């Protein structure tokens, strides 16, 4: 795969929920190493885009390709094993599983990985997230919101994601934790893992994005270069309407 060929491409993707036409022909791309922001007001279809990529909802039209392979129509576990990692809205930490059990589940993305390799990965995760190491035997429910967010991100990093979908990672978190999560996403960008990021804190999110899309009523209404001040202003005026 060439450096400029998109890792992820959505072409004319439509999603219906009963009579609601939630996505109305979405075209979107994420290129290698890019952080792409997806912005828009609540209920415009941002999370549905992530769900369609993850296989949680089936597109009624259009196609989604990942590293050149069509993935719409695959099950979520097949999509995950192709390298798409998901940090969903609300974190979705398994409450009755311990921190370590949650993390080990993340390793399921890679089939046939030796036990020693998983343990090494776990040790690396604990070194990066010492608070999770301290709470390794605690249940997911006993963690604070920020710790759960870290666990949700750490869990997906236990695999070997080639693309990360991160949906509203900062929602409801204390400012100190927001900084930590941001530092983590910056690290991921530096490691060259492409990210598709949904975030309400637009100004903050734009600081780590390479490109962005604005979504309105299930359509892409603007796309631009996040490093370009004019494009950033255009995005902000567009989603503030």
């Amino acid at each position, binding site marked *: 795969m060439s450096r400029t060929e998109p890792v992820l491409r959505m072409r004319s993707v439509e999603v219906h929920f009963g009579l609601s036409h939630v996505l109305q022909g979405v075209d979107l791309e994420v290129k290698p190493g890019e952080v792409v922001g997806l912005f828009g007001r609540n209920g415009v279809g941002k999370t549905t885009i992530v769900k369609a990529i*993850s296989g949680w909802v089936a597109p009624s039209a259009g196609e989604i390709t990942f590293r050149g392979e069509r993935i719409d129509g695959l*099950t979520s*576990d097949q999509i995950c094993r192709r390298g798409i990692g998901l940090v969903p809205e609300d974190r979705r930490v398994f409450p009755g599983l311990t921190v370590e059990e949650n993390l080990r*589940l*993340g390793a399921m993305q890679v089939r046939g990985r030796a036990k020693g390799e998983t343990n090494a990965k776990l040790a690396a995760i604990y070194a990066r997230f010492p608070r999770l190491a301290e709470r390794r035997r605690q249940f997911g429910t006993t963690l604070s919101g920020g710790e759960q967010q870290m666990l949700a991100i750490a869990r997906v990093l236990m695999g070997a994601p080639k693309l990360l979908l991160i949906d509203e990672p900062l929602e409801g978190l204390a400012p100190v934790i927001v900084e930590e999560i941001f530092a983590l996403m910056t690290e991921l960008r530096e490691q060259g893992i492409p990210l598709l990021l949904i975030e309400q804190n637009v100004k903050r999110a734009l600081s780590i994005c390479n490109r962005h899309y604005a979504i309105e009523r299930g359509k892409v209404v603007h796309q631009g270069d996040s490093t370009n001040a004019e494009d950033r202003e255009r995005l902000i005026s567009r989603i503030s309407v």
Partner: protein
Amino acid sequence: MTALFDSLQFIYAPQIINGLSIGVAVILMALGLTIIFGLLDVINMSHGEFYAAGAYLSVTLLGLDLSFWLVLVLVPVILFPAGFLIERYLIQRVFHHRDRHILTLLLTFGLAIVLEDAYRLVWGANPMRPETPISGATEFLGIYFPQYRLFLMAFGSLLILGVWWVVYKTPAGAIVRAAAYDRDMSASLGVPVKAVYALTFAFGVALAGLAGVLLAPIYSVFPTMGKDFILLAFTVVIVGGLGSIKGAVIAALLLTQLQSISSLFISPVWSDPLVFGVMVLVLMFRPAGLFGGFKNG
């Protein structure tokens, strides 16, 4: 004082032991039922018939002169793939329908009728009783306990602990619990949820079959044997909390002791109304059961 000890020794103790052995048997039945409900959210009305399948298979295999211990291993091994196929090709057909609960209930109920008639056709309507593999009795404090019942209690307790250990202490159990909590998120971490469902259903069926082998020498084998036991197993699962392993164990022991001890004072015909009365009370005051849910242990 002596009269009190005598009644404790010769009246209550045998009843308690008898209640315990029935309790262990009911737990074995209820475990598969509650695991299947906890993970798949499916009320398996054919669970009793899988128990009967285990018992009939044991009668047939024992008739081929195989040892009881070999049969104890073989029957779950035979029933496991059967359960897998039933989940894959029957349950999954209606699993994603919006009327899933009703449809799976009707489907498994229909399957129960078909299986029950199949047993009648193949093995006939007359009860059969395999020979007890362990005969004799052991004396303890002046009372004789049948050795097979003691074995059943010990083996059953080990089995129950084993199932609890698998579900709560192993990576495979963590996968099952994760899929029960949140199937979408589990799938997005790479858990093959469909396979997990089928394997768990198969595990529940194999457990029911194993219970059938173990209980056949005590309760006889006949086409409706599943129905007789499943009613109590369902009550146990409801009282303990649908999907809770701990709840099933405690509720089974409580209810079977209640049946056993109460039969000393009132006519045994009242034991069923008594047990169902407890279920009604639990549903009135704790609708989710005593320990409500697979996720809670």
